[in-house]
């Protein structure tokens, strides 16, 4: 594909998105709630689409397709068990939303700090999120850089791809905060889903005469790919190690858990959850079938992540569709990165900056948050540029590292005995364990870093809580309020 064609397609995508972002940001008020939470007034459909676009990154059509290429159907189990993790939102979603309304929380980490009556809890959790999510975002940009370089035969330099994606992400975020991000996410989610479905139907029919033909091919040529452990990649330890941290993604990742504050009502939150589930189910199936197609059509690849770029170059995919898929993957990456940048900026302004100053001034707080939007973007680009091994390790460790927040979050809603020192111990020690294990490649007793970080965080949270003093008054007030409200609404 020629570089000029790709540039023109990206330019049109940028212009369309910018029009949407401008429209969305037109009536933006001046406060932090307006900028970072869209005034807590999102409708269910937009909320579902932004939740989907934020959750699903370039990993799906590249990494997950690569997993199914190399490891078979285990990739489907991994991703669908993640999807079933939305059951956590069924329990925690209304609770987040209710306390968000009552205490005016801006970030999930602010909620933790207030509930455990400790500014250090908010600040340390926010910094932990920054440490794990910056490399995760950098990998998204690395993916775009590599994709555009590959698809143009090297005519689009790697750094140009990284720069373009980063510019689009920061421009839309800056234009209108979460409103602009949510509406451009909606546009991008639609592009992601439509082109993914269209392309997989095309591949199935042009390559195999239909989905039946695709599965018949797998059953005869690669039967092991329809089982686990199958070809060997998804042995039980790998499967559990990969899947367990992701099951808790909807709670552990602040860029998605912050979305639980933004629907304008619980009815709209229901539309958000159900819409996301349907989106996720379809998008997962498509990504897996994409990997299976690559296995049958291009079986000799040395690197599984190349399955998608190489597949896009085959003749059975018309050039126009390949271009759209490329845009869909860019959209998936940009929509994840800009949401992360926005969430991290809100955490810095609320949990680090505001906590350290008195008196509190909302204008100044907003200014700090907005300034951090480009600052984080530059840091992410810098990380994507140097391509250190540590970045890849930290990115993989992100799910294991963020998992350490989960005991504190569950405790906040269900355990009055939880304490601030316990949260700090579980987040700091658990996070360090995740990083060290991931970077060193150690798997004690054969278990993956996510299993260990989750275990360490849980044990520390419970153990340290039992020996320290809980914030009794706050815990009682917080949990009693929820019991009363949920009881009134008959929500479990």
């Amino acid at each position, binding site marked *: 594909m020629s570089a000029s064609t790709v540039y023109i397609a990206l330019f049109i995508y940028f212009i369309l998105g910018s029009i949407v972002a401008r429209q969305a940001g037109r009536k933006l008020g001046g406060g932090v709630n307006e900028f970072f939470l869209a005034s807590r007034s999102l409708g269910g459909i937009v909320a579902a689409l932004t939740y989907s676009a934020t959750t699903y990154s370039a990993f799906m059509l590249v990494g997950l397709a690569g997993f199914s290429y190399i490891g078979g159907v285990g990739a489907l189990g991994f991703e669908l068990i993640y999807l079933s993790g939305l059951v956590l939102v*069924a329990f925690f979603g209304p609770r987040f939303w209710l306390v968000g309304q009552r205490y005016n929380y801006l970030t999930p980490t602010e909620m933790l700090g207030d509930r455990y009556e400790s500014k250090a809890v908010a600040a340390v959790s926010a910094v932990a999120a920054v440490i794990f999510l910056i490399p995760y975002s950098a990998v998204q940009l690395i993916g775009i850089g590599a994709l555009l370089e590959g698809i143009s035969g090297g005519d689009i330099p790697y750094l140009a791809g990284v720069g373009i994606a980063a510019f689009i992400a920061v421009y839309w975020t800056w234009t209108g905060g979460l409103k602009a991000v949510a509406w451009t996410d909606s546009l991008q989610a639609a592009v992601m889903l439509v082109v993914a479905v269209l392309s997989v139907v095309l591949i199935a029919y042009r390559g195999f005469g239909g989905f039946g033909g695709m599965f018949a091919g797998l059953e005869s040529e690669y039967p092991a790919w329809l089982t686990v452990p199958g070809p060997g990649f998804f042995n039980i330890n790998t*499967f559990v190690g990969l899947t367990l941290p992701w099951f808790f993604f909807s709670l552990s990742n602040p860029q998605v858990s912050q979305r639980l504050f933004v629907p304008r009502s619980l009815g709209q939150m229901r539309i958000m959850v159900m819409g996301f589930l349907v989106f996720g189910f379809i998008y997962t199936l498509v990504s897996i079938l994409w990997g299976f197609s690559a296995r049958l059509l291009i079986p000799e690849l040395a690197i599984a992540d190349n399955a998608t770029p190489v597949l896009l170059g085959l003749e059975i995919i018309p050039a126009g569709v390949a271009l759209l898929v490329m845009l869909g993957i860019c959209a998936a990456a940009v929509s994840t990165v800009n949401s992360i940048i926005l969430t991290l900026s809100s955490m810095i302004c609320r949990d680090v900056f505001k906590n350290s100053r008195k008196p509190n001034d909302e204008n100044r707080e907003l200014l700090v948050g907005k300034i951090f939007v480009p600052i984080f973007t530059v840091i992410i680009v810098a990380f994507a540029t140097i391509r250190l091994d540590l970045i890849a390790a930290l990115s993989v460790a992100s799910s294991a590292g963020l998992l350490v927040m989960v005991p504190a979050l569950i405790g906040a809603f269900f355990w009055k005995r939880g304490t601030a020192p316990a949260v700090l111990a579980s987040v700091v020690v658990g996070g360090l364990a995740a990083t060290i294990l991931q970077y060193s490649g150690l798997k004690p007793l054969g278990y993956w870093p996510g299993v260990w970080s989750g275990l360490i965080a849980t044990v520390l949270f419970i153990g340290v809580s039992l020996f320290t003093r809980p914030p009794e008054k706050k815990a009682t007030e917080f949990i009693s309020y929820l019991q009363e409200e949920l009881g009134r609404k008959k929500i479990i």
Partner: protein
Amino acid sequence: MSLERQRLIWVIVFLVMVLSAFIVPFTPLMSNLTKFYGAFLFWSIFALVVIIFLGMITARWKDDQDER
């Protein structure tokens, strides 16, 4: 039935379902079934059942009771 009891029942239902999603495809019966209707269909149906159950749980999340 009290809300606590309903919550407990749903927690148990989901615990069993999610554990089965980890275990069943690795059992000898299914790990030797090299067909579309093996692990692929099992996990797909698992996800669809989860979606239906979540639809049931969230049915009580209403607009009219919580207008801002």
